[in-house]
């Protein structure tokens, strides 16, 4: 797990990953070398205080170069919330993340479903499976132009907000996108905040643990 100045979900992801038997470690961005790790997570937070644009500065540090290396080696990478913003800013995932419709930060549990699940993070899910998780962001409105959408997103795994649950005005209800093989996944909702029943309010079933389980399974048996 790569930690930048302002990353604040590293300990949370650590707990969630540990709960499925993974052996995570938090690495300060200055010391991040991808070759030492089986999989990489960029946790949420406010790297560099969201100065300029969310994720923009972190995507221009030396740690980003290491992310390109990791991509070339095919390592699983997941960016959560600010981590997703960093992956998009670094050009590792398509699209852009804009300020929420409504202009306010929003923290709320939402319902999602997955399409074309594959790759290390999603392979144990079935097409159309429902997942509940909370979002917490000010700049989470996914945007992509139609040409890129039909060229990339529709062929790749994607997470969408269920009807009526889009908290930020994201285009096509997109909550998360992935590379075609699913090796790199970015999503605005927080799976680590939905890894146990205790954290899910009434009316929601925690849908976060399955992503970590999928990774644990993939690292053992491949994907």
């Amino acid at each position, binding site marked *: 797990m790569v930690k930048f100045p*302002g990353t604040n979900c590293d300990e949370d992801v650590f707990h969630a990953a540990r709960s499925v038997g993974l052996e995570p470690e938090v690495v300060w961005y200055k010391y991040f070398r991808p070759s030492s790790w089986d999989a990489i997570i960029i946790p949420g937070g406010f790297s560099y205080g969201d100065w300029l644009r969310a994720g923009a500065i972190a995507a221009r540090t030396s740690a980003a170069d290491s992310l390109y290396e990791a991509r070339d080696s095919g390592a699983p990478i997941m960016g959560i919330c600010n981590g997703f913003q960093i992956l998009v800013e670094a050009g590792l995932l398509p699209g852009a993340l804009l300020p929420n419709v409504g202009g306010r*930060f929003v923290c709320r549990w939402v319902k999602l479903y997955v399409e074309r699940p594959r790759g290390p993070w999603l392979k144990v899910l079935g097409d159309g499976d429902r997942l509940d998780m909370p979002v917490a962001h000010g700049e989470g409105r996914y945007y992509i132009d139609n040409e890129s959408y039909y060229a990339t997103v529709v062929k790749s795994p994607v997470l969408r907000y269920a009807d009526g649950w889009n908290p930020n005005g994201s285009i096509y209800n997109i909550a998360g996108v992935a590379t075609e093989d699913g090796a790199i996944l970015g999503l605005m909702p927080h799976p680590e905040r939905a890894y146990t029943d205790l954290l899910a309010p009434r009316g929601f079933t925690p849908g976060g643990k399955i992503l970590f389980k999928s990774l644990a399974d993939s690292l053992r048996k491949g994907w």
Partner: protein
Amino acid sequence: MPLTTEEVEEIRRILGREPTLEELAMFEAQWSEHCSYKSSRVLLKLLPSTGRHVIVGVGRDAPAVELYPDTAVVFKIESHNHPSAVDPYNGAATGIGGIVRDILAMGAKPIALLDMLYLGDPGNPHANWLIRGIVRGISDYGNRIGVPTVAGDTFFDSRFNRQPLVNVACVGVASRERLVLSSPRPGDLIIVMGNATGRDGLLGSSFASKALSDNVDSDIGAVQVGDPLTEKLLIDAIQVLVGEKLVSYIKDLGGGGLTTAISEVAAEHGLGAVVHLEKLHTRQSLSPLELLVSESQERMLLSVEPEVADRVAQILEKFDVSYSVIGHFDDSGRIRVYHGGRLVADVPARDLAKPKAVRRDSRPPNEALKGLQPLTRLPTPPNLKDAILKLLSSPNTASKRWIFEQYDYEVGIRTAVKPGYGDAAVLRLLDGSCRGLAVKGDANPRYTSLDPFTGAANTVAECFRNLVAVGSRPIAIVDELNAGNPEKPEHYWYFEMMLKGVAWMAGELGLPVVGGKVSFYNEDSQGRQVRPTATIVGVGRIRDVRRAATMDFKQLGSLIVVVGATYPELGGSEYLSAIFGIEEGEIPRPRPATELRNAKFVYRAIRRGLVRAVHDISGGGLAVALLEMAVRGGVGFEVDLSKLVVRGDGRFDEILFSETQARYIIEADENAVEELIKYAQLMGVDVSIIGRTAGGGRALLRYDGGSITVELDEAASLYERSFEDAIEGGV
């Protein structure tokens, strides 16, 4: 507040000579009301501050209380009223920054924030601007530092239109051995870490110790600007420094800046200090005077033994935290400040840190009689259904979703009972066990305006009830008393009475008041005090967070049980205010013995798994509490209020909307009721089974000779939307 002539005379006497400009500035900062508590110190001793579980009481940056034998909770409250009136965004944000650093200073990990906001009428353009700015300031700062804002309190009233009250609290936890309880020693290095010092917040605490001027723009230089990224790095770095036991003392550079931090540490430990101002890292070129009293944010003072200084530097550099070694402590008892080799100040630490306490005159104003007169002539009751719906739409009752969704209340993955679900927030410790704590903040500015003693006492009781209603055992509270000008006897009286009310009720309920703050000079440019307000934040212990109770009705056919007797007590109620615009009468009487008994009953019922939902009865009375449970749960109900235990003879609206203390509503399974009644009889608790949860999407309240039916959809929509509409559409 500038120094008085007598104070300058006193300074001459202490020094035995004319003070330098730098020394005068140091005294002005340190002797300001904000830093010295000179007007309140004598009375503050009335608060019961000790107890079996208190580890550190009043005096350090924050108190620490034993939550479990191996775990301490560190929590504190603070006000940022003056800055938030001038610059709502930065004023509120820096309030969060400051309170978090107080928790860090004890070596604890901050795990929760609370905001208690007493704000103007959302329909007033200026108040609306302040509300948006304050909430956004807390949101932007709290979210960025990764500490969840999990609970709080609000109250809206046009008397706060220009001068709001912004009270914030932070809760931290630490294992017993991680708490930083040691003292600095002579020879220890003084390190200032964090932000570079600049020309912001100059004499900010002095600014907070006088009334706001008419032209608020002239005060803007006294408001500090927050930098949450640096704060987050301070949090991360201090966790490592404390984990490796590298520091002997930590202190926030808050109000009064460097002067206050050094003089308080030195005075408290009988030390002196040598400081070289030119070594401090700065943003711009500053005079020695400015360096001494700047209140630039996100700075902390470390006391470090010279042998470990290199390791400390290494850690700070890893986290990109700026720092400077500016001097050391010695055993001289004097603070000696140099700038470029020139001695600019040389003062005895003890005299600087503690000015003479001032005794203030106290006298009730005529206005205070309004809260002493029983209500003899009630206005004709309105259509009761309309009254219920109007109360549900009042900004004081309606859902505060617009506010709490702007806060990241999930970060840290501890929040088991989230905003909007329970009477208090419940957090787990995340130490592998199911242990946790409950936190809540409360105030009722209307009560404390009418009757400051009883109002403050009721606030302590309400906080206590809220903690009990989620299934926790309250262990300690802190208080923030927001009052007017202490130099005016008719303002000071409110402060004195609120303090005595808190002290009395806390004593009766066995709750130590382990810390607190006082905010004076909350008056407008015409010299009128804003509503005197006693804010209480409490912490409760909850052994198994999975058992925490929430307020939403869970299923059809449960029995609805009211705990506690209802008296006809409408004085100062939300009903009289929202429906008739009346604010007078005796407010509900505090009944501490009943409070304790009923709390024990509810606590036991929750622990034994006999309840499905619990909600305390407060503003808006029984009617509003029932509707809240129904709306949150999406489950209707049918109750017959002739079954309610009522004392005295009241009109029906007096019963429906009475704010009698010590009451709760419980949703219980039919099979549990026998046991509940048995307990109630054993413990001498009044309980009434008034009806059942029911389907059909409606709430039905029967009483002698009539009934009220409220459609749940309509109630829910008003409850959920009214506040947002008032904020977004009101201007």
